């Protein structure tokens, strides 16, 4: 490892307390992150298969398991439930332990929860491929997988809250509010959605309302809470400063809780007008969330934002912050009266959703994983060229993907709104941007493979250290000191 490696823990952080805390996080975090990285690769591999079907509609069409309508939900679910949530839970647990200045309570129970969750996702994705999807967009994983995931979440969530409960630093700071609220949020929305949709299904269009409500709460509220919590914790650490204002952060927190929890019902939906109208108003109100967040982070960075000295995890997190701002702006702009007809039912909405889940949340989480893993495992790898390459690949990939889909979506919308243009013409016109977005998917897939490769490398070294402790420990110590 070279000496200029910026991820080396600073002297201030290197005290024994933090070393003990980080070490206690090792089992759950290794399980959560390795599984997440695997699902990230699966997600983009399936996204690529789905994307290739727009190059040739009959690509893998003869096999029912690989039809577009099954491959596509596998990719979105693997990204959201396979990567985003476990990665977020891992990062959240680490933040709770560090800011509470306590070791993790029963780390092996949390590690078991992580295994249960990942196994649930596996069961769910196989069920989708077999054609047993629930049919609700964003909640396709059927009961069998969902129960395992829920149990896994409860193990992780309860012991994370116990870790919070035994904290020695009693004062809660901004990142902790976000993580705590998120921990409560998920079980509530997940059980509500599953009870009312798969266990005792309600009838008619109220099903769709619940799906929109669930999706809005998961994709906006949960991801924003965890993602912004991580950004509020890591940005000051990376910049070696303090957060500009905790009051602004509190404002961000309240606006997410009160406003963002209402968004998600699209304007043209076949439901009484008050629901889309309310959703539109609350989504526009998240402009305040955006402003408070942007001002806070900008002030925290000061001049640091523009310097090229940012370590690679800082680059990931900066990218995530900017992507959050753009993703929220896209969702607001898409609701304007003049623009909504042009973007609804088009690829623009997909671009917005994926920019939120991947560009904002996943990029932030990858940055956090790169930052956390060396500290937790004692093996320093994050400044390897692989990490840098994965940043540039992922960033270029998501930019290409989002820009081509968003632009293609608007073009598609303009044509859709002109009934003079035959529908065939509309779908043909959107093929070009779709094919460009496939290239973006390929870049992101490569980046995910690099991340997985990195994590597997760490895993191998951990296993080796177990087998041959003396030798490996000295290597690890040497790495951390360098």
């Amino acid at each position: 490892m070279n000496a200029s490696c910026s991820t080396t823990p600073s002297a201030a952080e290197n005290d024994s307390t933090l070393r003990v805390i980080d070490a206690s996080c090792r089992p759950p975090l290794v399980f959560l992150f390795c599984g997440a990285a695997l699902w990230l690769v699966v997600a983009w591999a399936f996204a690529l298969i789905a994307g290739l079907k727009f190059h040739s509609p009959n690509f893998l069409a003869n096999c029912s398991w690989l039809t577009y309508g099954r491959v596509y939900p596998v990719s979105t679910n693997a990204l959201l439930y396979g990567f985003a949530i476990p990665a977020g839970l891992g990062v959240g647990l680490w933040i709770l332990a560090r800011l509470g200045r306590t070791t993790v309570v029963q780390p092996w129970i949390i590690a078991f929860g992580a295994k249960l969750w990942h196994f649930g996702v596996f069961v769910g994705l196989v069920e989708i491929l077999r054609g047993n999807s629930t049919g609700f967009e964003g909640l396709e994983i059927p009961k069998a997988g969902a129960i395992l995931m829920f149990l896994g979440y409860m193990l992780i969530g309860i012991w994370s809250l116990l870790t919070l409960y035994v904290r020695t630093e009693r004062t809660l700071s901004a990142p902790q509010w976000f993580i705590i609220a998120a921990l409560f949020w998920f079980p509530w929305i997940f059980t509500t959605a599953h009870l009312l949709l798969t266990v005792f299904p309600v009838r008619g269009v109220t099903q769709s309302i619940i799906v929109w409500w669930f999706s809005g709460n998961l994709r906006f509220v949960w991801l924003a809470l965890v993602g912004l919590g991580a950004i509020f914790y890591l940005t000051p650490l990376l910049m070696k400063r303090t957060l500009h204002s905790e009051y602004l952060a509190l404002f961000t927190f309240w606006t997410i809780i009160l406003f963002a929890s209402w968004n998600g019902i699209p304007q043209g939906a076949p439901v009484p007008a008050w629901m889309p109208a309310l959703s539109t108003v609350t989504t526009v109100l998240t402009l305040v969330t955006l402003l408070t967040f942007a001002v806070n982070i900008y002030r925290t960075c000061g001049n640091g934002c523009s310097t090229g000295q940012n370590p690679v995890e800082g680059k990931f997190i900066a990218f995530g912050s900017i992507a959050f701002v753009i993703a929220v702006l896209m969702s607001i702009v898409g609701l304007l009266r003049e623009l909504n007809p042009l973007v609804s039912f088009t690829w623009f909405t997909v671009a917005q959703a994926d920019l939120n889940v991947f560009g904002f949340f996943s990029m932030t989480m990858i940055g956090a994983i790169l930052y956390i893993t060396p500290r937790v495992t004692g093996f320093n790898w994050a400044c390897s060229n692989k990490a840098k390459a994965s940043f540039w690949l992922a960033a270029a990939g998501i930019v290409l993907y989002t820009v081509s889909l968003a632009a293609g979506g608007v073009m598609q919308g303009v044509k859709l709104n002109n009934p003079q243009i035959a529908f065939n013409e509309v779908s043909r016109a959107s093929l070009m941007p779709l094919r460009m977005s496939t290239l973006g998917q390929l870049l992101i897939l490569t980046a995910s493979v690099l991340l997985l490769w990195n994590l597997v490398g760490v895993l191998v070294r951990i296993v080796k250290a177990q087998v041959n402790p003396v030798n490996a420990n000295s290597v690890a110590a040497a790495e951390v000191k360098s």
Partner: protein
Amino acid sequence: MNYGPLIFLAAFIGLSASWFGFVLTPQIQLGRAQQATNTVNTAQLYPIARPGLAQEGLEVYKANGCFYCHSQQVGQTGTQVNFILTEIGTNPVAVAEGLLTAKVGLTNANAAGLSAGLPKTILRNVPIGDAKKAAKVTRDNGASGTVEVVAVGPDIARGWGIRRSVAADYLYDSTVMLGSQRVGPDLANVGARLPDANWHYRHLYVPRSVVKDSAMPAYSYLFKTRKIEGRPSPDALQLDEGFAPENGYEIVPTDEAKALVAYLLSLNSSTPLFEAPVTVATAPAAPAQTNSPAQ
């Protein structure tokens, strides 16, 4: 300072507010009140639960994720009110004068012009009040006409439906798949728009055999290719040259394909409802089309 309980309270208040708003309230509003839904101006009950085969087809539609590319909701940007004169009666001059003095948006009306080519739309895109006034004036002068309410918007213009979709359209469905993308056309009304089952079979088997340059993948796994033994099956697909199997073989739909087509044909939301009023095309009450006994 320990804000732990405060944060829990914040999350609780925020989430329960949106839960009451978007989970409980829709249940109260739509979950119960809808069940007596029927149309306003006809005695016909709507909606009707899907027949068994179509319900099985819904499962096939769901399993293969058709809803990722096809939406099932028609939008509407506005409503247009027209007035159609159907009968001029015995005093066309009075009708023309009446319409002019009523100031319903008609600038030049004369008896000869109104009498020619009935029934015809004489007022287009007028306020509903004017159309009703015109109806009253024409009736008072011995003529008759109808007020026509039509939905407008790009979806309607594409022929995807005659009115916007509303909650009542999905009343009896379990697993409502509204869709969020229009990679393919909207299917809310496909049963009324494309009522030919054979067309659907051919389209599912090889989309490009019926829609040129279609981007839809072929769902050939919903069909079986089998050797003709004895007489060809009545279900066998009538495919065009270039898509047909080799001689001596035939393509027959599986049970899944049959259920899926039954489901597609059951998608029909062209009944007017109170919350989405439109005039359905009925035979205009022109003299030639009355059922009065011939004299």
